[in-house]
């Protein structure tokens, strides 16, 4: 008899707070999942030929490819600039460090159209950077403009993730490497960098995803050549949902496939994070 009682007690001890929290999780998950899957399923069920048409449309494919390509370039530049930045922020203390960190994070909180206006002002033909560089590289309505806009909004994601990664590597490992004869750059290359690599990959994926999804800043600086989101927007305003949705479905299927593959690669990597 006492045994049954404990079991009943166990059931009675389901925490009401956790029930509510679980409910919140369910709503959020449902909201995201149903929104995206509904779009995809409806497109396939009600207008499969539209999707096929979009696949055959060279301007659609070009736009999607350009999204992936310019997003990749933005991520590459973010990596080259963000990794050293992140290492400094993770390892060194200097005056004004907190302010610098806040400044680097601003693109995350600025409305994207505001970012676009700012970018256009500086990279435009008469801008502080755009003007002197005009003979070498054009930003307005050019690939360089798309990449610069994407870089501005997505770089903080890589930098922050990389900083976390470097912080998770015990500085004593670097010290040990140095005592064994490694100059700082070798200690970084052979110890710190590989140990932070999982964070670096995750940061790069987030940075790339953010770059591909950018719309507001990109259309201000470089409406042409059209990236995926711009093309979707243009088709939507000129021809409506039926013409724009197939492109949206195509874009999300391509990017999701890539991200799932990258996630699988990164989760397969061993974790060396500090306990």
């Amino acid at each position, binding site marked *: 008899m006492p045994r049954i009682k404990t079991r009943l007690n166990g059931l009675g001890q389901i925490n009401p707070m956790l029930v509510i929290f679980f409910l919140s999780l369910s709503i959020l998950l449902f909201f995201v999942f149903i929104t995206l899957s509904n779009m995809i399923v409806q497109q396939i069920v009600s207008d499969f030929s539209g999707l096929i048409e979009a696949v055959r449309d060279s301007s659609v494919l070009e736009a999607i490819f350009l999204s992936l390509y310019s997003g990749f370039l933005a991520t590459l530049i973010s990596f080259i600039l963000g990794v050293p930045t992140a290492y400094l922020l993770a390892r060194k203390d200097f005056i004004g460090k907190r302010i610098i960190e806040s400044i680097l994070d601003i693109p995350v909180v600025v409305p994207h159209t505001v970012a676009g206006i700012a970018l256009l002002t500086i990279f435009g033909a008469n801008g502080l950077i755009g003007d002197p560089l005009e003979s070498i590289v054009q930003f307005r309505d050019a690939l360089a403009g798309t990449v610069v806009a994407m870089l501005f909004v997505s770089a903080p994601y890589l930098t922050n993730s990389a900083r976390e990664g470097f912080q998770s590597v015990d500085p004593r490992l670097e010290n*040990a490497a*140095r*005592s064994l*004869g*490694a100059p700082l750059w*070798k200690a970084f290359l052979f110890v710190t960098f590989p*140990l932070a690599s999982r964070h670096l990959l995750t940061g790069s994926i987030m940075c790339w995803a953010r770059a591909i999804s950018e719309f507001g800043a990109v259309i201000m600086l470089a409406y042409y050549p059209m990236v995926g989101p711009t093309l979707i927007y243009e088709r939507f305003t000129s021809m409506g949902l039926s013409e724009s949705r197939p492109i949206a479905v195509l874009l999300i299927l391509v990017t999701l496939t890539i991200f799932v593959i990258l996630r699988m690669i990164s989760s397969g990597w061993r974790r060396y994070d500090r306990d």
Partner: protein
Amino acid sequence: MIEIKNIYRNWGDFSLKNLNLTIQNGEYFVLLGPTGAGKTLVLELMAGFYQPEKGYISFNGNSVGTLSPEKRNIGFVYQNYSLFPHMDVGKNIGFGARMRGIKNPKIRDMAEYLDISHILHRNPETLSGGEQQRVALARALIINPDILLLDEPLSALDPRTQEDTRKILKKVHEDTGVTVVHVTHDQTEARVLADRIGVMMDGGLVQVGTPGEIFNKPANNKVADFVGVENVFNGIVTQSNKGMINLDVNGNNICAISDYEKDETVYGCLRPENVTISKTEFESSARNTFYATVLEMELMGVLLRVKLNMGNDFNINSLITRQSATELDLKPGDRVVVSFKAAAIHII
């Protein structure tokens, strides 16, 4: 020779103040002090991970000033061993050679020397603490360092492994003649391993001397409080019979439990609360009974620390209650009977 002259460095909430220290080549030097005394920081300054704000450090007469750590030819073993988790044991040991561009490092020889050749392909995280310690030692020793810096090398190990590692450290020091600077808060460890000990407290060096000087003549009350309680003595086994040994400690015959063979030099540890003081001899199970003279008595809370001389420069401490002292009417200079059980002595 390592010379540390007037080193000063401030870390905000902690500072090292005007530290002076000279360590001879080939010496086994132990920096002993409570947690937070700044011992590890001294090691890290020697290694060059930090630069002192004032003062200088020189190795063999050459100031190492701002010389970067990789150019100092030192071996450093951290308390948590700091093995590279993304490399197997063999690659960890070979790391120094790889960084220095040495071809064909003698990884296997080193591994065999420290008895870890069977784990060369294992990952560090699968190893026991003792094994990790030996890998870290192998990794540091393979570059033939002039100085081996050890940060609390035994503190994370269980007592059995501590004993093994202590022997390894002794062997390494004897075989290679490397100058060792070893940081610890454990006075037994210091006494057993050190040629000389430096006692550090609150960022300063309080006393430097041989173990005998430190433990028998502490420079002040703080040092005495820190080192002066536990009894550690060194003796030679004169007889060994079925787990019982007789030890000669400065001419006193002490009976203890251990498997050590005759003529071996060992250390005995005896907790002061296990030392009984009486005015007259009485029949008991304690195997060790001596006549002794009360040298000094010091209050430690509700207890009294009584320093006793057993003759021939052999002193031990006893902790007794104040009540016992009153009832025995104990005072310095008294002749008393001291007894402790053979089983109360821990032989290392």
